[in-house]
């Protein structure tokens, strides 16, 4: 057992292997506030990677409604239940991780989904909490009494993956150049230990080839400087594929570093599990923060306040405007003269987006002629 530093927990923790951060970490930022669950991302991923025989049930990307949706069933409530009530003290997690809570004879605390748990990816979709008869009014405060929101999930390409820890033959590895976690298709022997160990349940067993597969971070696209399929397909322009630095190397001119390390607007998913997941979420502003704190850790309130103030924060607003503006991965960005611009690694401009779209208001009344006689015309600005 090695001791590794998990910055999301604010402390060191146990992990079977020594820490070895990648040169830069593939990451995705998700703005949950923009998602409409159109599933374009899911279709993009499925039609690219998992439409083969043996992959029928696989959704490397999925969108589930919270609080009542899951894919596979109960993935998060089950591991939270196994772990039991745990605590944060300010910004330090003082509870146990899934590695520290591993029972004897296991490397990771985990559970194995049943076959049928994968069969209902749309369960709980659009189902809000609260009772319609009692709560259809919109209260004065920030949170509605009835709420639900959409959670976008891919493999988190964790810094301390449970799948890597659990594999008895080291058939899963993390790439040193970009931190993408991959199952070695030649080395895997189909033990499905990774399926039990991954708390996010993003490794999946191929029924024809009898080995396990997972989200590959669209690495062939990344290697060409392009964002992932799910990022590019997103109609809501809510995703950003980018590279994250270690916190001590954070560079505010880089989008992911800015959102995650500098502004702390984008938060990790269930950081308390201890894997240091590398997909970061801008929390939904209308959901009670007590629920959100369990999901995204402390810092939710601050993140929501910052997001609601974005209209007066041109630096942040400009970066958010650049989501979905280009298929290319941006290295840096800036906001000048009301335009947000993204740049590649050579400093060449990729795309520019205005912070305000130009608008033109037409006069309601105008002079015109009808049958040769002067008349007044009226326009509606629709």
């Amino acid at each position: 057992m090695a001791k590794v530093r998990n910055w999301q927990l604010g402390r060191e923790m146990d992990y079977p292997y020594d820490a070895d951060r990648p040169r830069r970490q593939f990451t995705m930022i998700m703005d949950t506030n923009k998602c409409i669950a159109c599933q374009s991302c899911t279709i993009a991923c499925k039609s690219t990677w998992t439409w083969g025989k043996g992959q029928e049930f696989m959704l490397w990307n999925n969108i589930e409604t919270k609080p009542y949706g899951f894919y596979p069933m109960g993935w998060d409530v089950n591991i939270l239940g196994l772990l039991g009530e745990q605590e944060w003290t300010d910004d330090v997690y003082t509870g146990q991780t899934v590695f520290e809570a591993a029972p004897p004879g296991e490397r990771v605390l985990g559970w194995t989904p049943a076959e049928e748990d994968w069969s209902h990816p749309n369960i709980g979709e659009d189902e809000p909490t609260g009772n319609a008869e009692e709560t259809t009014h919109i209260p004065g405060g920030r949170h509605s009494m009835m709420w639900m929101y959409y959670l976008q999930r891919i493999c988190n390409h964790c810094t301390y993956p449970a799948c890597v820890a659990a594999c008895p033959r080291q058939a899963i590895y993390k790439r040193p150049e970009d931190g993408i976690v991959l199952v070695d298709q030649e080395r895997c022997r189909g033990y499905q230990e990774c399926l039990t160990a991954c708390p996010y349940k993003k490794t999946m067993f191929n029924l024809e080839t009898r080995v396990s597969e997972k989200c590959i971070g669209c690495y062939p696209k990344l290697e060409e400087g392009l964002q992932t399929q799910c990022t590019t397909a997103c109609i809501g322009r809510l995703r950003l594929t980018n590279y994250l630095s270690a916190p001590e190397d954070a560079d505010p001119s880089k989008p992911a570093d800015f959102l995650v390390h500098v502004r702390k607007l984008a938060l990790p998913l269930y950081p308390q599990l201890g894997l240091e997941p590398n997909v970061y979420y801008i929390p939904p502003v209308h959901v009670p923060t007590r629920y959100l704190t369990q999901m995204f850790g402390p810092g939710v309130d601050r993140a929501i306040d910052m997001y609601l103030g974005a209209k007066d924060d041109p630096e942040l607003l400009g970066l958010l405007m650049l989501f979905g503006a280009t298929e290319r991965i941006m290295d840096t960005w800036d906001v000048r003269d009301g335009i947000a611009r993204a740049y590649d690694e050579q400093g060449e401009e990729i795309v520019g987006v205005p912070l305000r779209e130009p608008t033109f208001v037409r006069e309601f009344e105008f002079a015109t002629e009808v049958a040769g006689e002067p008349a007044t015309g009226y326009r509606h600005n629709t």
Partner: protein
Amino acid sequence: MSDKVTRKDVLVYGGVTAGAVVAAGAGVAGIATAVERRKEAPVVTGAPIVARRHAGEIPLRDPGAAPWRDAERVLVPLVAQQLVPPYLDRTGVVELRARAAYNANQVALLVEWEDDEVDDLDGIRRYHDAVAVQLPARLGASPPAITMGAPGNPVHILQWRATWQRDLDSDGKTGVDQIYPEVVHDVMPDDVLPRQTAELYWVGRKAGNPLSQNFRTTPIEEVVAEGFGSVTHLRGQTASGHGVHEDGRWRVALSFPADRAGVGDPIAPGTSWPIAFAVWLGSQENRGGRKHYADWQTLIVEEE
């Protein structure tokens, strides 16, 4: 270790090298006789497994024929693997019975164990029945670690799998259509793409993973290992065999060339070898290290 090994010498050898708990259980002193319904040869506990010379081909599908008919069935106790995580936490089978034989070219084993259910398809949380035989690569004084050898001290393992048996018996029909007979497919890659492109969607198969192929010539995989987690599929696969499920038990024959070219020292007449076994019950989610295993027993290859 001399070339000529008598039975008495080997009993002592077996007593010295077997693991403490298992040796105590096996008890050289106790010989259990169990007379089976079908009046097969009585099962002997704690004795070495003796391979006698057989003239002619050793049948892999007929346990009632010579040499199996006359070979002594040795009872080998099994325990749940709890040496290295992931552990097997529930014992489902406590023993297997082993017989051995050899001829001019091959060494063969016939192993049997109780398992009510046939598990011969892999799926989501579905695992297969299997048995493995483990021999050191080198003839030597002390056997390698029971944990599948150690660096510098390799073991040679033959593993029979029910899934591979079904692959062989059904001509490769062991996938989605068999797991879910009512399944309906919309469009599959090989419906619309050229074969070479469609094959890319079976990544494991295309990558050459032996587990991912479903057309086979043998239900047995031959590997070497130097410790848990290091199993390496041998490029030249030489083992053959056959497994059958009958009356609530599996009976599996495994056969391999005695010369073990490229793998290890030959299994020659007049030699004695540590030999170990492992059994997986698919119905109890056994797989990988979650297995039942036997500590080192003794295989005697009798003089010709």
